[in-house]
């Protein structure tokens, strides 16, 4: 896909505007920036727009945010195409983003990705027919210590393997996702097989 041009996607709406609630939020965000630097609020506002619009940014939303901040539209297009976290095409209800960068890959991200493909019946970059899932391959999510990692919505699911990945997908489909974080018996990123330090009592 070429990042250099706008894609007219199915479901692309010609207009976009923040809801009243989001206008209030947007103004609060803008107010955090020093006088004259309001345009720095671009990233959070794009995020707000993406959340409002079901996880992706149609051109109308980019234009709206540009006008909201009195920025030239091209400046917003630049930013929106730069950050991969902004989706410029519609995504499913659950955007499953599988990290396949080296640490995750060494720890079995191939199996995780394969499990997603197989279980959802779609390839990378595709969306299931019911619009529930979109599958993406992403670069390092900065949680390598719990590799392999999958990012869905606002949560990271860590220490996955094929079986726990399937469980995750089923949970999402049923509206009862597992608890975010490590999917093995492990406290956050502490050693998986028991404590290695501070083992002696009374030290």
């Amino acid at each position, binding site marked *: 896909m*070429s*990042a*250099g*041009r*706008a894609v007219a996607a199915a479901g692309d709406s010609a207009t976009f505007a923040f809801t009243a609630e989001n206008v209030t939020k947007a103004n609060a965000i803008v107010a955090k920036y020093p006088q004259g630097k309001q345009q720095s609020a671009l990233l959070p506002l794009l995020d707000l727009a993406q959340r409002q619009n079901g996880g992706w940014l149609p*051109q109308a939303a980019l234009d709206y945010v540009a006008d909201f901040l009195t920025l*030239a*539209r*091209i*400046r917003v*297009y*630049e930013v929106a*195409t*730069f950050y*991969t976290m902004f989706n410029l095409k519609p995504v499913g209800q659950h955007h499953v983003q599988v990290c396949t960068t080296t640490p995750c890959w060494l720890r079995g991200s191939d199996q995780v990705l394969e499990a997603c493909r197989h279980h959802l019946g779609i390839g990378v970059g595709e969306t299931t027919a019911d619009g529930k899932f979109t599958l993406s391959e992403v670069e390092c999510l900065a949680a390598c210590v719990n590799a392999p990692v999958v990012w869905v919505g606002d949560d990271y699911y860590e220490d996955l393997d094929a079986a726990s990945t399937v469980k995750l997908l089923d949970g999402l489909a049923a509206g009862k996702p597992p608890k975010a974080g490590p999917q093995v018996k492990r406290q956050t990123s502490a050693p998986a097989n028991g404590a290695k330090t501070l083992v002696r009592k009374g030290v």
Partner: protein
Amino acid sequence: MPSLTINGKQITVDAGMTVLQACEAAGVEIPRFCYHDRLQIAGNCRMCLVEMEKAPKPIASCAMPAADGMVIRTDTPRVTKARNGVLEFLLINHPLDCPICDQGGECDLQDQTLGYGMDHSRYEENKRAVVDKDLGPLVSTHMTRCIHCTRCIRFATEIAGVEELGTLGRGEHMEIGTYVEKALSSELSGNMIDLCPVGALNSKPYAYTARSWELIRTEGIDAHDAVGANIRIDARGREVMRVLPRLNEDVNEEWISDKSRFAYDGLRRNRLDQPYVRRNGRLEPATWAEALGAVAERMRALGGARIAAIAGDMACTESMTALGDLFRALGSPHLDCRQDGAALPVGARAGYVFNSTIAGIEGADTCLLIGTNPRWEAALVNARLRKRYLGGGFHVFSVGPELDLTFPVERLGAGPETLGEIAAGTHRVAKALQGAKQPMLIVGQGALARPDGAAVLAAARRIAETCGMVRDGWNGFNVLHTAAARVGGMDVGFVPGQGGRDTAGILHGAGGRDLGLVYLLGADEIDMAQLGQAFVVYQGHHGDAGANRADVVLPGAAYTEKSATWVNTEGRPQAAPAAVAPPGDAREDWAIVRALSDTLGKPLPYDSLAQVRERMVRIAPWFARSGEVTPAAWAPFGTEGKLGAAPFRSPVTDFYMTNAICRASATMAECSELYMSGGKAATGTHG
């Protein structure tokens, strides 16, 4: 002022200069792609790497301020290796399609690879390919060749003032584009072609029509507007293949407008390449002798009092000098070079030129526009105003049409009413102008070519005088012309003599049969219907309105085809040689008038171009100083009177269609259709 050592040589440079500029000052060439004197520093190509003592790695000299005591080396193996490496990286994704690239032979990447690159490629993988963008009818794209220097983006954003280009995507996937495909809405877009160091942005109309090394270059002067941009005309045989800007800091810097650059295809179409005489209601080909004979016969029969001449917008000063001399010799005072009827003051030069000079705009701090849209009337004057605006602390007010000038303008009103208030000192802006250090005003032809033009001019003069715009060392009173011919015509006195008629009078006289013959020297923009039954002689280069109405057509030369002088809006005479020969039987214009004078038995006293120019110097001494502005003395001009009520309008409603050459140009027609009829960019002209 920092003092540094470059390749062992000590040099002191101005504070604020970069290492790259310091190297240049020391006579050391630094290769570069992204750096450009007139654009902000980007520092992204890394071609300018040099070694700096105590720095662990080579530095980008374009982005490093020169500092006291720096020791710079540009001739070490390390620098050579760095340049090698940068070029190798740049060429990884560059297609190396030089044999089929229009930039070939004048490409920075090609030249620098020859100078600093390796002789072979070690890259065996697939190169990336980038989808081309559609930037409109003027700029073609081959984005696979792009090296991401971002010069085009910076030009659009800074100089042209249209923020439409950007970098999209990231890393390997980064592309230059507009995201939403659209034609660039700038009248300066062609300059990006010159700025692009590779063949990514090229000229669409010129595409694949010539190779740069087979073209003959001639230094010319643009005649599409009154800026007098310095151009280079590249020709092959008798054809102009392209037009490029030439550096002149005082006039156009290194830019030209899209009209100056791309209207040249109009030079090939609809040309008058032989004389015509109307017989039985139809224009039929004739010989020069027949055509001149027919004109002379009429002139003799009518006598001086019943013949008149009007000069058009692109006429050269030489031909106006000759025609004026001829008409006066025949006893006709009916001459006018103001075909639009503008109330330009005869004899008071300060009242019809751009006294501040174009470069002088950079010294102004407040500007009042009166009935003008500089963006369409003189795109490079507008670019200079924008440059001044970017410098900060510049306030622009306007009385006249709604404007989109690419910088903020405070519109005070639409017409003379507001102007009257400012002139009377009752408008709040009068205070602002009085309080300014270097105030200026610009009067457009839209404010002068109207029944109350002389009163508008007087009001403008009053503003200039009461607001301290005219004083020692500064003259902020400016008239902005739209026609290349105008100031020259005024300078050589192509204006009504004692008891003579002006343009309106001539048209009136022709319609009412007081005048029997009207000689149009390239005048196409008058209302031909008003000429009534008069015998019309048209001398010019295109089969436009004038030639259609004419009884005799004398084929002249276009601005690229004659050695001629134009005086720009500043009053700067600029002479240029012919780049190509006129087509067919067409001749240089002054020589046609000279031949006619022979046929009439009243030969003009000059036989060569040099002698015509001597005559011009006798009329107006500043013609001896070609290329320079001779300051005009402040003198009374304008006629105080009642101001009308009609709002001011710009005379240019379609930037791309202002003269016979544009009207014959397919490229200009396409632009006009796209930019003007589309209504997008036309907002500035519907006052």
